[in-house]
């Protein structure tokens, strides 16, 4: 009998828990620890943020789903790992603090045989003064954030209907942000909705990003075969913005946000500012701040976690220049190099380095996109980690299944306007996610499997994915047949 504890119930953690329950025997325990009571299909938060969906339509409560499938659920946040146990109890354990109503603040130690850290990111709004909900900018990172953003957006539309002009700034709130795809998606959806409400002529939309070029998306951009040319993704992205009348500012590190004004620094080390009536600026990510202690109670956090707070796994973390980055630097099994029964899945693992070429201005400020880890790789990683753990419980001494992001493809569909007949979306497929210049010397990717296009078909796919993945996450009949 074994007990597997999963920290986090996002795309990666929930996938891992679901497959563990499916593959493990009834005598084995699967325990999920998550501070939130619901599952959120994050890609659809964009539509909540422009008022097309209610937050309830992108979430569902986890407890009933887990109860009916034999998964134990603890609504709590993880505080610290005790991978060697303590002098009093040698079992590896994680200390948690309950967030469930009636138990708030209560602490408990949960013993485990295997632990998957799928805690995702901490939304590090604090990295930029004045950034984030409750301060001077908005976000679509959580359903609540997106709902509040929609409220402000619809309020601005009402004012524009009365003749006022407004400026919307959408983008990244720090020089080291990731998730530019989400910011891009929000910008074009917002613009589409302004047209749908008949107020486009009253609005100015500005995309403000840390990307070196538009369409970088933290992947160093992609190249696609198009009309007889190999075309970089910035052409496609600039084209869409130009067509929609969206202005853009790239290579920007937002360092301060005030009421109606953002201050940013450029790669040329110039200080600039932009005023706005509404700003949706994404935060940079960090690890959630888990600590780790040995049996004696000594802090071993630096042994288990990188300085960013993300967990170290089987990657090559040696610092080296961009030219020496290799596809094989990226992890395959997501196992801690020092603790065999500890894994990290999804955003919680520490990437060995960025994917985009790093840029630092003369003041030493880094301004480039951090590596993306979207839904598809997060779910795939959750599944292979679950498979490896099942095999190790059955006697294996090491992980059996791997999924390197340098050997894995990803499909990303970014909505560019939601309407079943006039809406569009940018569909992008890349293979592999992390470029492998040894295998594909010219561009790092296989151009036969890398594509991007804008059209109504992409919007239909986005709707299909919304319903299909929520169905899958609810563990409805046949859920495991739906690919990650």
């Amino acid at each position, binding site marked *: 009998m074994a007990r597997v504890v999963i920290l986090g119930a996002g795309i990666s953690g929930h996938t891992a828990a679901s497959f563990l329950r499916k593959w493990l025997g009834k005598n084995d325990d699967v325990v999920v620890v998550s501070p939130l009571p619901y599952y959120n299909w994050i890609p659809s938060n964009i539509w909540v943020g422009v008022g097309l969906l209610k937050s309830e339509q992108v979430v569902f409560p986890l407890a009933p789903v887990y109860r009916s499938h034999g998964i134990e659920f603890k609504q709590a946040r993880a505080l610290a790992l005790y991978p060697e146990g303590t002098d009093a109890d040698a079992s590896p354990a994680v200390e948690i603090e309950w967030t469930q109503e009636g138990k708030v603040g209560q602490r408990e130690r949960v013993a485990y045989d295997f632990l998957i850290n799928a805690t995702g990111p901490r939304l590090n709004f604090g990295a930029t003064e004045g950034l984030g909900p409750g301060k001077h900018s908005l976000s679509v990172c959580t359903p609540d954030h997106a709902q509040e953003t929609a409220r402000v957006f619809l309020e601005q539309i009402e004012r524009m209907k009365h003749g006022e002009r407004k400026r919307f700034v959408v983008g990244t709130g720090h020089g080291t942000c990731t998730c530019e795809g989400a910011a891009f998606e929000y910008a074009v959806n917002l613009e589409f909705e302004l047209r749908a409400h008949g107020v486009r002529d009253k609005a100015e939309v500005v995309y403000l990003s840390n990307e070196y070029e538009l369409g970088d998306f933290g992947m160093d951009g992609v190249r696609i075969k198009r009309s007889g040319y190999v075309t970089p993704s910035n052409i496609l992205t*600039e*084209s869409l*913005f*130009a067509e929609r009348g969206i202005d853009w*500012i790239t290579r920007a590190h937002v360092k301060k946000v005030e009421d109606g004004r953002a201050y940013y620094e450029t790669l040329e080390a110039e200080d600039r500012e932009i005023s706005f009536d509404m700003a949706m600026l994404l935060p940079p990510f960090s690890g959630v701040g888990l600590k780790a202690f040995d049996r004696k109670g000594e802090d071993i956090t630096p042994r288990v976690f990188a300085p960013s707070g993300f967990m170290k796994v089987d990657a090559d973390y040696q610092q080296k220049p961009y030219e020496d980055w290799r596809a094989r630097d990226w992890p395959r099994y997501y196992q801690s190099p020092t603790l065999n029964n500890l894994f990290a899945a999804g955003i919680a693992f520490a990437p060995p380095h960025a994917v985009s070429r790093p840029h630092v201005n003369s003041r030493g400020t880094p301004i480039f996109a951090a590596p993306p880890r979207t839904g598809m790789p997060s779910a795939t990683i959750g599944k292979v980690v679950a498979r490896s753990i099942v095999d190790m419980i059955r006697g294996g001494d090491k992980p059996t299944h*791997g999924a390197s992001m340098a050997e894995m*493809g990803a*499909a990303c569909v970014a909505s560019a306007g939601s309407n079943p007949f006039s809406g569009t979306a940018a569909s992008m*497929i890349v293979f592999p996610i992390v470029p492998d210049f040894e295998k594909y010397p010219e561009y790092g990717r296989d151009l036969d499997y890398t594509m991007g296009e804008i059209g109504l078909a992409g919007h239909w796919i986005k709707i299909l994915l919304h319903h299909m993945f929520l169905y899958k996450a609810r563990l409805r009949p046949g859920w495991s047949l739906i*690919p990650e």
Partner: protein
Amino acid sequence: MSEPVTEYAQQKAQMKPAFYATKPTGITLFMRTFLPWQIWRFVWINFKMLVIIRKSHRSN
């Protein structure tokens, strides 16, 4: 917005002019929402995605 025109002009100058970007022609825009073509693209993109998923899982 109540801000001086000079600042607005300054900020416009900070932005890359869309003038230099590639823009879609009328036929490209038409094809983006032309139903028969988009139904075909729906099938093709889904097929491509399935190929990628299969290729990714093969490396596991």
